[in-house]
């Protein structure tokens, strides 16, 4: 495995094992960092549960750093517990991801979000030594056998929406020469009917002759 990739996006792979004291210090520092700031939007931390290498479809993956490319999606076979079945929630929980809202270093526990709870339980298989057979747990969901997880930090410098948009397929040539707009589901019908008109008035370059957008469709103006 490589040591450090580049200065700012470096990946460090120590050749020692992680212990609970150090990990607890890490989480404590993170929450201290968050609690002491006026703006917490860029100091929120998330956890993503990940599969074991051997559960990944390719089966040839040997570099553990690639594991985050294969999140456990709770609507796919192997990614949900077989009792309660597939779970489609259209949020981060479907990607086995949620926010970490607290940490107790004395009990080695993280509290995860109650507002956007995960879709299911995640329990890794533990210790295979027969002497310690009491610790053997059946993994649930099956892909969570290794109990791998990724800690992430939120960056809210640019307001962003996470959507299931496969860019290579949907936008093979990028976004073109003009801007693009993002429209809320509940945009007022009057504004939706006259989108080009208002964009032109806002100085935004729309395709075609802007002079054609000089009149308004008044049909839905008075909708409340």
């Amino acid at each position, binding site marked *: 495995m490589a040591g450090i990739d580049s200065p700012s996006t*470096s990946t460090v*792979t120590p*050749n020692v094992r992680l212990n609970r004291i150090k990990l607890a210090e890490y989480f404590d520092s993170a929450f201290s960092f968050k609690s002491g700031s006026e703006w917490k939007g860029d100091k929120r931390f998330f956890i993503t549960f990940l599969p074991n290498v051997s559960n990944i479809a390719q089966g040839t993956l040997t570099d553990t750093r690639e594991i985050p490319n294969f999140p456990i999606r709770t609507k796919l076979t192997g990614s949900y517990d077989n009792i309660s079945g597939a779970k489609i929630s259209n949020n981060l929980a479907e990607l086995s991801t949620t926010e970490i809202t607290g940490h107790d270093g004395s009990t080695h526990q993280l509290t995860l979000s109650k507002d956007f709870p*995960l879709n299911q339980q995640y329990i890794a*298989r533990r210790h295979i030594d027969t002497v310690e057979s009491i610790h053997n747990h059946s993994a649930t969901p099956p892909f969570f056998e290794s109990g791998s997880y990724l800690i992430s930090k939120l960056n809210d410098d640019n307001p962003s929406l996470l959507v299931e*948009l496969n860019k290579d397929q949907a936008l093979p040539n990028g*976004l073109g020469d003009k801007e693009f707009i993002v429209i809320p589901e509940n945009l007022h019908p009057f*504004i939706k009917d006259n989108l080009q008109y208002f964009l032109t008035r806002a100085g935004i370059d729309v395709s075609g002759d802007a002079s054609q957008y000089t009149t308004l469709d008044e049909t839905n103006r008075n909708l409340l």
Partner: protein
Amino acid sequence: MARKINLKGLFDTGLLSSSLEEGAVNALSNGIGAMFDNDPNLTTKFETDPLHFSGVGVSAVKLTFIPPIQGKNFRLKTNIKGINSGSNKAFISVNGGPSITRNGPSSISTIIQHNYDFNISGLSSIKLNQSAATTNTSFDIEIFNIELFVIDEADPYEFNDSVLTTQAWNSSRYIGRQLIGSKINSARRDDVGNNDRIPIIQNYSRNIYIGSRVIGMTEPGITGSFDDPTLTPFPGFSYVTVDEYITVNSDDSITRRSVRGGRGEGDDLNARKGFYQAWYQDFPIGKQVQVKPLDKKLAQSLSPRYNVFNNSGQLQKMLLVNQHPAGDTVDSGSYYAASYETSSFIFDYCSGSGNPDETNDIGADFNIFNYLLLSQKFFTGSLIANPTPDGLGVRT
């Protein structure tokens, strides 16, 4: 046109906070936030302070908006009900100013609805007060279904006051009606509880967002680089980023707001708060969004709409923890744990109290991503017992 403020949304995101100044919250209360929702079973219950220096029972809660709600003329609607007796007075104070007084419910279980209209340049706080008559020094009340409307914007809106007498504008809670419509402004069979087929009024957005980037991630099942390698990858997904929006005002004028070019950072934190206030209201998680390129010649196969999986920003990967491989399986030892219970919302990362000798008790392999970019911002220690001078330890 009036604009209804999403008080529940502001409260849930911390942009509206509350502080109890007199009296107490009743043990049977559903919490302060219950004042703002539309659930008929949830109310905020207050007990007055019978020993208040004024000689009458008083309860008071202050609602604070950060940033202030922009506007010139406002209307606050409240519903209150006496629990153990009637309340003699119900009054509010806006931005610390003089009281606006109304009569409270006259008897137990009577529901009374009040409208408070006030003109003020920006709304930063509302104090809700209830007091008993001097001969009645103790009473408890319920407050529910508080609604706030901006009647006149800073950029003036025309408001048709007559709509306030319509059923749709009246408190849905008060008349026993719900607010869950499957389609805006029309009655449909799958509306929840809308048995009278009355069109349900919901908030419309008047904002159009100008996109800045679409940050694609890997194809599902494929490893390798993508647009931004610092991100936590969600294969097949993209981040649609925005840093500007336009608001179409009721007089058809346009207002542009931006967090572009550093605005909203540092000293201009209020600009960022304001931007995100509109953002969270317009793009709640679980709703849908339309991505529309303006280049009509662009080759694209975008879906008509996309579900919003997350709206709070971009996740950047920091720390990956794996059990140590042991032959064909994994085995870090008996102290390794990775266990999340849905009932407690607790995730255990170490079994029991850990190894008493404190070394290698989790025994996990780990990778630190974006070390200089992320972890160094808050963590000055080391994840390694015997670090090298750079704090990172020996690496392979």
